[in-house]
């Protein structure tokens, strides 16, 4: 006696349409929120990609900031050194970073678990040092400035323009990921993660899929990085510390590893919660005036891990299941009363 489960199209429609609708709703009172939503969009693209490599194919990447940096620097260098049109650099950054990710994925094939974690960690640390070295190209420690973003459409504020642009890109990329993962590719990735021996017996080329996962994740991060560079109009080594990689991983875990649906909530979490924690810590007594929002943020993170280990997606499943059970119980009561 269960309700028929809705088809795929309505689900996809809701998941993509609702956030896009939210974004396009004019923020009458507060234009700055558009800027914040732009960042949510950037994070969404990045963590969807990270989810592909860490959630779906099970390869832990704790240095994803490296690919963000690569994409951001690509945009900054192309715009600043070579006068390439700003918005053209978005797909270019995605492609170049994707290739970089594929190249990294190749030696990474031999590594797994903690070894891969170290390799990705090392990559994140090294890439900013390498950028610093080639100063004439990347601006070194001082970094690169590009033109401030500005809205080409009259009547639309810069912040709103950024938000529309980024969410348009995010919708496309989210949709692409959805399509990719629900088919053969997604099954192959999950096989790589859960049952590699069985996968090989079924003719799945492990090496190819593992490398591809890195390439896809890197491409997404490259696009996110490019959009980040456009939004901030400045890149330098300090812009991509290890804490960025950790933030992205947090977003994926909180959203739900191996599940695309939760990624939106994951992105919202990493954009809003750290700043909310900073606000909260200011109201609490602090020693010598140093605000320590990390304590609050870390505790929230730990709580999330304890309470909903499957992330937001897991929570949705659990609450959906609970609601289904409740509904079935109600119906069965109604049934029994009818027959009684």
């Amino acid at each position, binding site marked *: 006696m269960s309700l028929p489960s809705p088809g795929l199209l309505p689900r996809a429609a*809701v998941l993509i349409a609702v956030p896009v609708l939210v974004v396009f*709703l004019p923020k009458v009172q507060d234009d*700055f929120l558009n800027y914040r939503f732009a960042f949510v969009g950037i994070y969404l693209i990045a963590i969807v990609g990270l989810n592909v490599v860490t959630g779906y194919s099970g390869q832990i990447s704790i240095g994803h900031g490296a690919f963000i940096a690569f994409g951001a620097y690509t945009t900054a260098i192309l715009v600043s050194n070579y006068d390439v049109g700003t918005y053209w650099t978005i797909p270019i950054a995605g492609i170049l970073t994707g290739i970089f990710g594929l190249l990294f994925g190749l030696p990474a094939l031999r590594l797994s678990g903690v070894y891969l974690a170290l390799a990705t960690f090392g990559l994140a*640390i090294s890439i900013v040092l390498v950028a*610093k070295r080639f100063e004439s190209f990347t601006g070194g420690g001082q970094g690169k400035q590009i033109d401030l973003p500005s809205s080409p459409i009259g009547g639309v504020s810069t912040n709103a323009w950024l938000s529309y642009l980024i969410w348009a890109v995010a919708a496309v990329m989210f949709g692409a990921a959805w399509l990719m993962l629900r088919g053969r590719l997604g099954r192959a990735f999950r096989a790589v993660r859960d049952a590699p021996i069985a996968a090989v017996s079924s003719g799945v080329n492990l090496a190819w899929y593992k490398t591809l996962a890195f390439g896809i994740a890197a491409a997404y991060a490259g696009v996110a990085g490019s959009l980040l560079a456009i939004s901030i109009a400045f890149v330098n080594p300090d812009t991509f510390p290890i*804490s960025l990689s950790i933030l992205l991983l947090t977003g994926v875990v909180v959203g739900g590893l191996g599940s695309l*649906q939760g990624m939106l909530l994951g992105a919202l979490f990493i954009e809003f919660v750290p700043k909310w924690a900073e606000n909260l810590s200011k109201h609490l007594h602090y020693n*010598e005036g*140093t605000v320590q929002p*990390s304590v609050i943020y870390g505790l929230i993170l730990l709580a999330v891990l304890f309470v909903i280990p499957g992330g937001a997606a897991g929570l949705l499943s659990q609450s959906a299941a609970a609601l289904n059970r409740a509904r079935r119980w109600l119906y069965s009561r109604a049934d029994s009363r009818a027959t009684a």
Partner: protein
Amino acid sequence: MRRALLALGVLAIASAVVLPGAFGGASATPGVSARSVTIGGTFPLSGPASSYAPIPVGMKAYFSYVNATRGPDGRRGVNGRQIVFKVYDDGYNPANTVQRTRQLVEQDKVFALVGGLGTEPQEAVTAYLNQQKVPQVYVSTGATEWGAKHAEHPYTIGWQPDYQSEAAIYGRYIVRNLPNAKVGIIYQNDSYGKDYIAGLEGGLGAKKSQIVLTQGFEITDTSVTNQVLALRRAGVDTLMIFATPGKTIVTYITMAKIGWKPDNIFVNSVSATDAFMTAAVANAGAAEVNGSISVAYVKDPTNPSLNNDAGMKLYKSIMAKYAPAGVKVDDWLYIYGVAKAYTFVQALRAAGKNPTRASLLKAVFNMNDKSNRFLLPGMVTKTSPRDYFPISQQQLQRFNNGRWTLFGQLTDSRPKG
């Protein structure tokens, strides 16, 4: 069912944010109301640069003092307005600086950005602030560009003596007093260290060849032993340490570990505060550290000869009354913050009964103030259409047995004319 829940969740968040946001009527000048002036700044309150966090605490304490004290016009605050200082953490990451600065301008609608810390973080927001015509005043960094690039960024100005002029003072001292010295430099490989080197070369002028070796290091290095050994091997007898505090202390310890004491050591002023020198002495021994030379421009809270100085007494009483409990007033960064806040209050007062951003900038760029008792005696905070360096005087000081002692005279590196 799941989708419905997700959709509901997203709509809930959406409605929460679309509902009316900032309150407050639109005022002609953002951040200025009849009762208050709201200013803001971004500082590294967390992360690797969080040791600079005392600066906004010092600033806030001084603003609280001004808010509670009746000024020359008989009213509390500045022209009857309370100063509200909004401080946000950027963790020294320019991406955060941009976000938080935009928040201060667009959401908190501050009157001006005051005291923002970090060369690259502040660089990241300079173009935006100038485009939005928001004053970016008294940034907490000694990079020379804040004064040198005024034409490009007319809304931006630094405060402290810049690193290049500090190193130039060392250079001129060496030319005058140590003409045969073999100079070696150990420096942090970033704009901070390189600015110092440029200044030193400028100060040495024709005698630039006195520099026999420079050795750089990265913040990510855990040791500088090889660099120090190389400097000793090169016969260096005059060492310049151009590094942030942690590595400065490590340099002293390393020299002690290899048993080397150059005849002269010049240490950059940011690392030369009492706290760091004490740490250096504790781990490297007093013999290694004694005789080190640096410069000062702010009064030193650990100097016992200032115990009865009016400015020092005022500083300590302000911190006791208006700063959070447990604050270590000996930390030089607090008095730095107080001194800076003093300069801003002077500018705000001069901006008139109804300050606008234009009148603030006029006050900031036409200042001639000798009354800042937190700076060394005789110092003047001065700007003019040809001089965009508010504080450019410094005095040499020498460290011995736990104390810095000023010597020589106040040197002015102000651009001539």
